[in-house]
């Protein structure tokens, strides 16, 4: 079976979620096609073992339109013998996946965290009810569109790089397909996003006031991570909504999630419980966050964090030299 992977890239540089999707596709398909709007980093696609690179080219794709891109992907999949389409469940992937599925009249399996084959059929696992349940879901259509939750699949280069064939696909698009376009992207310059960071250091009401978030920022900085926040501190106006982790904020799954002065309410856990490693600092030994933590420190954030910053700095110095 051939699986196509939508390659999300910014100025040629491929998003990790797409590399994760390629790796996952290699695990279940005999042939992997990388679908790019324009040209993405060919060398990386080769290293990741893609068999074919398809550059989708059309004048109407110079400005990003989810409608037009979905239409173009659907036209390609229809034209080729592609059994499955994978996308990263990123902001972009979550809009494209359902659209392409409607156009192709296939099942859409959203935000999956594991994939396998049962009786030679692709099945996926996805969390329901904020992660309280894991459901195994099967497509009932021949083709399937699957989006993969970022950071749940490891991105790993292929054992042997491939020599992918490179082709161009020209979809038929009209103004009809471009009734929504992205006209501008405002980047949070110099600030790592919780959705993209390997390490997220979050602060909650235990920090007592917005001025004390300098501690969280410093700890995040020495660890090379992003700053996150609980809803309590976002609602209080201490931190921007873009940093909120949880059911009504962002769902993150970094390698390390460090919760400081956060109690661990279910709605907070909903946004971070799939993190690889969870660590917590809280002065209340019975705080629910400790029940889901790998490592915890029972202590006062104002005493523990400064010491922790020092120790991490020392560690970084010793490993750097």
């Amino acid at each position, binding site marked *: 079976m051939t699986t196509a992977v939508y390659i999300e890239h910014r100025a040629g540089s491929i998003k990790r979620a797409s590399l994760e999707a390629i790796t996952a596709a290699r695990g279940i398909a005999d042939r992997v096609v990388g679908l790019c709007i324009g040209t993405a980093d060919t060398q990386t696609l080769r290293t990741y073992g893609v068999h074919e690179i398809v550059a989708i080219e059309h004048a109407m794709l110079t400005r990003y339109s989810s*409608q037009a891109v979905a239409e173009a992907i659907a036209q390609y999949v229809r034209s080729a013998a592609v059994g499955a389409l994978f996308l990263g469940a990123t902001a*972009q992937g*979550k*809009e*494209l*996946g*359902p*659209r392409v*599925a*409607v156009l192709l009249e296939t*099942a*859409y399996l*959203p*935000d999956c965290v594991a994939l396998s084959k049962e009786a030679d059929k692709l099945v996926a696992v996805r*969390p*329901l*009810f*904020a992660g*309280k*349940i*894991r*459901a*195994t*879901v099967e497509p009932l259509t021949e083709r399937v569109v699957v989006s993969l939750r970022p950071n749940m699949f490891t991105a790993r280069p292929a054992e042997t790089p491939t020599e992918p064939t490179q082709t161009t696909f020209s979809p038929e698009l009209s103004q009809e397909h471009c009734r*929504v376009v*992205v006209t*501008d*992207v*405002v*980047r*949070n310059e110099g600030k790592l*996003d919780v*959705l*993209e960071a*390997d*390490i997220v250091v979050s602060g909650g009401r235990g920090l007592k006031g917005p001025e004390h978030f300098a501690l969280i920022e410093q700890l995040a900085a020495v*660890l090379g991570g992003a700053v996150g926040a609980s809803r309590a501190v976002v609602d209080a106006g201490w931190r921007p*909504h*873009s940093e909120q982790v949880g059911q*009504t*904020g962002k769902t993150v799954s970094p390698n*390390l999630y460090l919760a400081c002065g956060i109690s661990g309410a279910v*709605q907070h856990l909903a946004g971070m*419980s799939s993190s*690889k*490693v*969870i*660590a917590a600092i809280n002065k209340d*030994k019975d705080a629910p966050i400790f*029940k*889901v*933590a*790998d*490592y915890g*420190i*029972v*202590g006062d954030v104002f005493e523990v964090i400064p*010491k922790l910053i020092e120790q*991490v700095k020392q*560690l970084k110095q010793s490993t750097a030299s």
Partner: protein
Amino acid sequence: MNILVCVSYVPDTAAKIGATPDGSALQLQGVKYILNPYDEFAIEEALLQREKHGGRVVALTVGDAAATEILRTALAMGADAAAIVTDTTLDSYGVAVQIAEYARAMNADLVLLGRQSIDHDSFQMASTVGALLGMPSISVVSKLDIEGTRVRAERDVEGGKEILEAELPIVISVQKGINNPRYPKLPDIMKAKSKPIETLQAQSVPARSRHIRYEVPQQKRANIILGDSDADIAEFVRLLHEEAKVI
């Protein structure tokens, strides 16, 4: 402007949800259901857009008859009318088909939804409905301006914010932060009780996917909880570095 706002009836976030030992079904006994929290923002946005452009707001839900409760909330907040398509067997795609049918029949200029339903958290409804209607859609919108038929929206993406332009008719899913949902006042709640709610039969749509198993995830966490001495903090750093290898 004809505005359709879609609302879903979901288990309370604090509800205990389990699975039967054989994994064939969910255990939802005694679970309290609520209006999906994001849909409050969708209702509020519908009302704000109506205040600006005039027109009508209809609230729609697809589900169990008990979901009529959340339509009363939408009516109390200020929706002009409400409808329920009764069904409990459709998959997400099937629900989208009912929503699209209704939107088509009422000639909707704007279809508003929440960014995600907190039961299945699938983030798919806006794009699915948009595709079914052949309309553009924008998901997870945190700012929406409509002038004539021109739409300008902002949404959060990884590492920043996207600014989008589009045209009516359109499907939009909204995010917390776009507005502050109003609380219905007692007289409005009373008045809402006598507003009629239209009940429709769902058209049957074959499912495109199926849940074959449910399980309660087993957390396999190391659960090493230390004190706050300097030695403990050093051990914490060592564990993260040497055992977990994450720093």
